[in-house]
């Protein structure tokens, strides 16, 4: 736990010093929210239809902004091989992966909360009482995304295509969790409560476990090759 805290503290210190990740993800999320609100506004949708397109827009914005941000999550480690320095301290690769997943999760979740609020206001969607439930559903979606994207970003970072490769290998694999997120958001906005009997919740939990277990087992192999 002490080593995990040290790794997280280092990432936080670097982020607070240059604010690259936060600027990138929040900048994209807010700009995309603005564009989405113009697009929806120009279609003159009624409030009910706007509420129905809201979940899809939120998760599309999440996908674009988070993928751009996560693509550079190894930049600081690889530019001068600092990751090798960490490995030479005897830190298990699994712990490095866990620290990256948690760091990425926090950054993406923060940006997602801001997007929910801003897009809700811009589209005049009455999120109101359902806001906490939307956040609750977002946790497993974003965790599954972070677990998968952190692993694939490591693959992309060492390829010749760098960040360009990440969306190509990531997007097909995140469809199930994004569809779950959209469907659960629809359910919450329509009924005002979390649809506990929906098939999407167990699907999300399975995705969380599968992606995280795959990541923690494959990351050490990637690191050594």
């Amino acid at each position: 736990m002490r080593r995990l805290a040290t790794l997280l503290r280092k990432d936080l210190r670097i982020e607070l010093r240059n604010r690259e990740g936060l600027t990138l993800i929040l900048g994209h999320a807010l700009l995309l929210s603005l564009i989405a609100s113009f697009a929806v506004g120009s279609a003159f949708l009624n409030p009910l239809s706007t509420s129905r397109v809201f979940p899809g827009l939120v998760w599309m914005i999440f996908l674009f902004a988070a993928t751009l941000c996560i693509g550079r999550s190894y930049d600081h480690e690889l530019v001068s091989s600092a990751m090798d320095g960490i490995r030479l301290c005897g830190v298990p690769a699994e712990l490095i992966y866990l620290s990256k997943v948690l760091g990425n999760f926090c950054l993406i979740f923060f940006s997602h909360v801001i997007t929910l609020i801003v897009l809700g206001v811009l589209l005049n969607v009455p999120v109101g009482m359902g806001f906490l439930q939307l956040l609750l559903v977002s946790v497993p979606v974003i965790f599954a995304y972070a677990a998968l994207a952190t692993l694939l970003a490591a693959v992309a970072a060492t390829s010749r295509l760098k960040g360009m490769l990440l969306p190509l290998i990531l997007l097909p694999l995140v469809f199930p969790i994004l569809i779950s997120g959209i469907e659960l958001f629809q359910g919450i906005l329509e009924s005002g409560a979390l649809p506990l009997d929906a098939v999407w919740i167990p699907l999300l939990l399975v995705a969380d476990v599968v992606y995280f277990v795959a990541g923690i087992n494959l990351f050490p192999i990637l690191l050594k090759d």
Partner: protein
Amino acid sequence: MPDGKVALHFEEIAKAFSRQKVLNGVNLSLQGGEIVLLLGANGSGKSTLLRIAADLLRPDSGRRKVLLGERNATAQEVGYLGHNSMLYADLSVYENLAFFSQLSGGLAEALIDAWALQDIRNSLARDLSKGQLARLSLARAFLPAPSIVFLDEPTSALDERGVQILLREIGKVRELGGLVLIATHDIARLAAYAQRVLVLQQGKMACEEALGLGGSSAKALPFYHSINR
């Protein structure tokens, strides 16, 4: 101090990148208490051999053993300096050393004193000169107190004071029974302090010799000069 005899063994180590064979069946056996120079022309496989020795790269075939007595050495007992600094550009000199110290169990303050980094302790790594960065990278490589040290061209950016500190620190490792393996072209400055020389040629160990007093060599250094002309 190592809690047993330090030894490095390579058996038929081979490594290729794409279709290019870099190491082609390297056999090597070294014992503690020595500073060993690894020589070879550019592209002969020195850096790859050191990365495999430090367990940062997996060989395609062959066996690598880094032993402390009967057991395998842990990562904290191995020091390594590569071509890259292995530091964070956005952290200061102290923050970098403190970070790696917290992970490995060393003392950042002691390293700052040992490597004469007091004047730049609050400077960001990105703002350091090449020589200052080299000294900081070496300080990190000696965390926490390794018994086996692999250094890849450690003197290439160092000033005379930096070289003196390096010689003092590798001397300490050797005196305590540790092993120091240095890939270098800087024979003039290092040969007098080394006990053994290895010469790599086209991915194979071409020559090995124990050096005489003051770094005198009858076989290995003349051979290296002949292939590097």
